[in-house]
């Protein structure tokens, strides 16, 4: 009798194991605080959804695309994975992502639960493919001690572009030979500088970076002066240059740059420095126009997930992008919530506030080849300050190269 009971127990456990649980796999790159938080979220999710089991797999950021490339065709890839929004076109055209089902993620749902730039950023050919938990934006960091040193009010950062230039000039120090030994403003197009040029300066000068269908480069035609406005800071005002003290982050953290434009992901870096007395504020406006660049990592469902797994993946996606998850994400990872309702509570936060305000008027560039398109603007800046090319010509050349990258992408897709 005892033996029969035991046998029954064993069978029922095995049976439950086979019939009951749907197991889905979630992939993201390794970033300690994110990994810890997702583990926590999965535990919570599994409690709320008995019968669904989520396996959490992480790997180094450097191998992300290679790893996915070999796993998904072999059928051992994830059901849900995290990817940079700029890679969505590539993943979709390679046949890896399934569109977000309209029934669960209607446009009303997306519009009410996420910032406006998100719904544009997750689209490919008008169809949404992924959803973020957190987003990033740009802001202006300033060093309060260096401000005080030159007699500027350490609590009053510049609010307009003209003011920023004026401050930067005051804050730049030179040696007897005219070499910069303290930069007023970091000028690093390879950092966030190219985003600032493309999505902020272009719009502030009355232009549009790309056409509405994202297939035509417009910045050189609609705002030809943009690059000049940027490179004048290097060649005319001489407040900084690319590579000063190696890079913008190093220069600012070693107290050798008074102002820098960087992303919300940098908060963690600066926060831990006790000798750096910094503040952060919204990007300066120009011609009365405010603009910002936002970007994000998003979670998408892959073609691996079908049937029960697809249903489970949808539930999981909803859960990790929920208000609850976003709040924890902000607290534990320090990234900005993608939902304006969650963000609202932090508007007056001295560190998150300036970024969150920026999100309201932010744009996410539609990249078809993120590194290639960044290189184009890095090269344009180099052409002006190293080779002495006319900035208007350099921007025109950049636009032509950018267009070639975009055309090449679409010629492959169609």
């Amino acid at each position, binding site marked *: 009798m005892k033996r029969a009971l035991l046998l029954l127990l064993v069978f029922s456990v095995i049976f439950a194991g086979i019939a009951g649980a749907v197991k889905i796999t979630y992939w993201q790159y390794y970033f300690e605080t994110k990994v810890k938080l997702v583990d926590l979220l999965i535990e919570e999710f599994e409690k709320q959804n008995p019968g669904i089991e989520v396996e959490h797999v992480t790997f180094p950021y450097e191998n992300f*695309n290679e790893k996915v*490339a070999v796993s998904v065709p072999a059928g051992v890839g994830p059901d849900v994975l995290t990817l940079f929004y700029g890679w969505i076109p*590539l993943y979709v055209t*390679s046949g890896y992502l399934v569109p977000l089902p309209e029934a669960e993620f209607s446009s009303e749902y997306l519009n009410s639960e996420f910032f406006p730039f998100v719904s544009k950023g997750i689209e490919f050919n008008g169809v949404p493919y992924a959803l973020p938990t957190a987003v990033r934006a740009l802001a202006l960091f300033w060093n309060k001690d260096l401000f005080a040193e030159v007699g500027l009010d350490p609590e009053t950062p510049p609010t307009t572009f003209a003011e920023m230039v004026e401050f930067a000039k005051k804050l730049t120090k030179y*040696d007897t*030979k005219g*070499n910069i030994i303290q930069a007023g403003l970091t000028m690093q197009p390879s950092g966030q500088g190219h985003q600032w040029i493309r999505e902020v300066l272009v719009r502030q000068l009355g232009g549009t970076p790309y056409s509405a269908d994202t297939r035509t480069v417009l910045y050189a035609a609609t705002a030809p002066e943009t690059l000049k406005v940027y490179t004048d800071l290097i060649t005319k005002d001489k407040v900084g240059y*690319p590579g000063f003290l190696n890079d913008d982050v190093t220069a600012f953290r070693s107290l050798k740059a008074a102002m820098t434009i960087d992303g919300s992901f940098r908060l963690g870096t600066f926060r831990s420095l006790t000798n750096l007395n910094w503040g952060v504020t919204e990007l300066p406006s120009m011609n009365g126009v405010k603009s910002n660049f936002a970007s994000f990592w998003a979670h998408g469902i892959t073609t691996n997930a079908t049937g029960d797994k697809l249903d489970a993946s949808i539930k999981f996606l909803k859960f990790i992008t929920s208000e609850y998850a976003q709040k924890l994400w902000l607290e534990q990872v320090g990234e900005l919530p993608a939902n304006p309702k969650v963000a609202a509570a932090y508007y007056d936060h001295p560190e998150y506030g300036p970024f969150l305000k920026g999100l309201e008027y932010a744009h996410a560039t539609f990249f078809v080849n993120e590194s290639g398109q960044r290189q184009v603007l890095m090269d344009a800046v180099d052409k002006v300050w190293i080779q002495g090319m006319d900035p208007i010509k350099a921007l025109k050349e950049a636009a032509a190269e950018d267009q070639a990258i975009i055309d090449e992408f679409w010629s*492959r897709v169609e």
Partner: protein
Amino acid sequence: MKISQKRIVTAYVFLAIPLIFYIVVRFYPMLYSFWLSFTNWKLISPKKDFVGFDNFVKLFKDRVFITSLWNTIKYVTFGIPLVIVLSLFLATTLNKVRHLQWFYRLLYVMPYITPLVAVSWVWRWIYQRPPAGILNNLLMAFGLDAQPFLTSMNQSLPAIVVTTVWVNLGYCIIIYLAGLQTVPQEYIEAAKIDGATSRQSFFRITLPLLNPITVFLVVTQSITFLRIFTQVYNMTDQGSGGPLNSTKPLVLYIYQKAFRSFDMGLASSATVILFMLIMGITLVQLLVLNKRVQY
């Protein structure tokens, strides 16, 4: 089976293990990348269509590819004479040193055994503009103007060559020192008795006898310079091979095409071209330099 036959079989069984390993991890991927060079494979896409010579045509129309091909040739032509002449000079000098020779040897070999990424970053900082770069601070201490080095179109490639030469010197010196020990002292002494100057005996005896070593070093160093990557990747902004592609070698071009633009087909084609370049240069060097010297 006879004992001798058994022995042969055993030998082949043992040989088979490295052979299979070599075929699987070397030859197969090599042949496969030859095949890939004729496809339009994008890294994350399952599609691999045959496109003939399209990739090669595309490469030779790409200005950046031509620049990086040209840069690669520059690395070799600047780097090889420098590293060979300097290491030969230092090795012959070191060979005369009687005291603390081990110490000097260690000193020169140090850069070679240091991880290249670390070396590259140290040099990246040495080359910084003021106020950070040591080299520029030195120049300015002597009243000279600061130089842009890595942020200049003309100076960046030579600056990276200097770093690479500095790294490879140690290895070349050790090999030359070993070679110098094999030069029979009787020849030198005989020449001395016949009235040869030390210069004559160096150029007429030592150098010709060192020829096999020189050939070995020229060939292996050329391959090293043709495959230069780590230094450039770590010493330029965002590993871009900049400014404006002025330092970008072929391998970096291949890397960017493969893992940044995910264009595996094109990257494979560039790899095939690099392979042929290395093969060609090596064969020419072996033909021209390899002369048997006998006295």
